[in-house]
């Protein structure tokens, strides 16, 4: 046998031996660990991720794996039973292709959505009629609504996005926006609105910062109080769906998400509103009911 062959064999033995030894000495407690995966809405992801981090700090045996992928992915995967939690910005019933009968909805938070414009438009307030006219392409210059002489550039979220869905349903009273630029993330929308003269779009309140200007609608500002008593109508629930009633770690974690600590401290810091503080409730057809 050549020396080369012997060396190869020794390396192989050492490699497999090492792997075997590693397997034998692996952390046995990890067998007791429970791991769950959440997939879906990119908007909900930072929220759930932050909560998961706090939760696993107290419960070191739990692994909560939070992924994005979009609401559509979240709903398809939870309907297929491929994951434990499906995050979504919209009601499962609104996506007609999802078999929503066995899905259980957990409302996690409320997000308010505000129209935002580039700072140079010279407009602070719009009537809802004007907003609809702008988004359907009937008003094309800011001058027509009392602003500067700048062309209006529409920026939409992608078709099927939860934010767009909510905005068209409650901000545009169900009208479909004209075909225009479409971006698939809040960060990009904010970036484009802040750098493009005359741009208008919409953002969840958590993403509004001082690089863009949120608009008042019929002189109502998009604030927490106005959303709680529904004088600001453009808001939606953030959902976590489970396949059948939640069990085990999933159940514990969803209870944790609905706890006072998370709802009023963590979510408020991130610009979301806790579900219990809402004075009104809404079902998936958009009908309001008083708490």
């Amino acid at each position, binding site marked *: 046998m050549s020396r080369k062959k012997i060396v190869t064999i020794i390396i192989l033995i050492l490699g497999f031996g090492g792997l075997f030894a590693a397997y034998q000495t692996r952390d046995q407690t990890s067998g007791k660990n429970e791991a769950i995966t959440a997939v879906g809405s*990119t908007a909900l992801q930072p929220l759930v991720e932050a909560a998961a981090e706090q939760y696993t700090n107290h419960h070191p045996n739990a692994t909560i794996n939070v992924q*994005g*992928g*979009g*609401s*559509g*992915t979240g*709903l*398809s995967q939870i309907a297929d039973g491929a994951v434990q939690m499906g995050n979504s910005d919209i009601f499962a019933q609104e*996506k*007609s*292709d*999802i078999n929503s009968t066995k899905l259980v909805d957990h409302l996690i938070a409320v997000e308010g959505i505000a129209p935002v414009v580039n700072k140079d438009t010279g407009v602070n307030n719009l009537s809802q009629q004007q907003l609809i006219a702008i988004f359907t392409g009937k008003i094309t210059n800011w001058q027509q609504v009392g602003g500067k002489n700048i*062309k209006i*550039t529409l920026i939409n979220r*992608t*078709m*099927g*996005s*939860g934010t767009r869905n909510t905005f068209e349903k409650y901000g545009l009273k169900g009208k*479909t926006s004209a*075909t*225009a*630029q*479409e*971006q*698939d993330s809040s960060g*990009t929308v904010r*970036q*484009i609105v802040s*750098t*493009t003269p*005359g741009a208008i779009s919409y953002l969840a309140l958590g993403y509004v910062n001082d690089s863009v200007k949120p608009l008042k609608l019929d002189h109502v500002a998009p604030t927490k109080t106005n959303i709680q008593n529904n004088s600001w109508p453009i808001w939606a629930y953030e959902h976590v769906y489970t396949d059948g009633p939640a069990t085990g770690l999933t159940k514990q974690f969803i209870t944790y998400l609905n706890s006072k600590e998370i709802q009023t401290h963590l979510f408020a810091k991130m610009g979301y509103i806790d579900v219990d503080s809402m004075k009104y409730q809404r079902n998936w057809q958009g009908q309001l009911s008083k708490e």
Partner: protein
Amino acid sequence: MDNKLKQQLHTKSKTAKYEQRGKLASIMMLVLIMVVVLGIIGFILIKGTSMFFNDKIKISDFLFSTFWNPGGKTPTGNPAVGALPMIVGSFSVTLLAALVATPFAVGTAIYMTELSSKRGAGVLQVVTELLVGIPSVVYGFIGLTVVVPAVRHLFGGSGFGILAGTIVLFVMILPTIVSMTVDALKSVPNHYRQASLALGATQWQTIWKVVLRSASPGILTAVVFGMARAFGEALAVQMVIGNAALMPHNLVSPSATLTSVLTAGMGNTVMGSLQNNALWSLALLLLLMSLFFNLLIHLIGRKGAFKK
């Protein structure tokens, strides 16, 4: 003794066995790649045609209509699945980017292999390889903060459009084409150059008539891969082209490419729904278009090679 000799003659030598095993291993690898390639192509074929079979959409509605709103209807009542704006967008951005990038890339590659010192070429090579690894998002971000405003000031409009997309893609595919062209030029044997120079040709004549000619298949491959990258690029293009499913009427009007619409919409649609199937049909279209480009370029390459 006789038996031993017989045995020796009948068994394969060590070298022959080694050869057989090596050849088998390499063919297995190729088979593996083919399984992967066919797997993906089959996957896209099934997903991409299900819109036509399951949802009964006419292919003509898909290819020639200009209304893109899967699930909705066009003003005339047909299903709004028209991919024409994106087809035009993808074609123009890719072709323009390749047209602009090729001379720059080939020029740079010539400089690196034929003219510059070894050290200069080395630095350039490291820099181009560095650029391949910049994530698309970063390119998109720079495009958004530098290219779009520049286009807006120079050419008017909102700045978003095919022109901005072309500029960003030009920079993105440059490293791929340069690096592969350099490899192609390097594999031209040195005695070709020496022979040409010895015949009294100038350096330029040698480069133009000998080096580029004999490297042309490799250069074409480089361009094909550059165009492939441009075709498949999503995140950066999406940020600067405007990503609006409208027919582009000039170079600075917002438009969209197949890839940008596909990537932006994928996560928001439910698998198996019409909206989702329409996106997979875009992927299939992309595959067919890149096949077409590929064949076209090789055809041109073969024509060029005949004249040699």
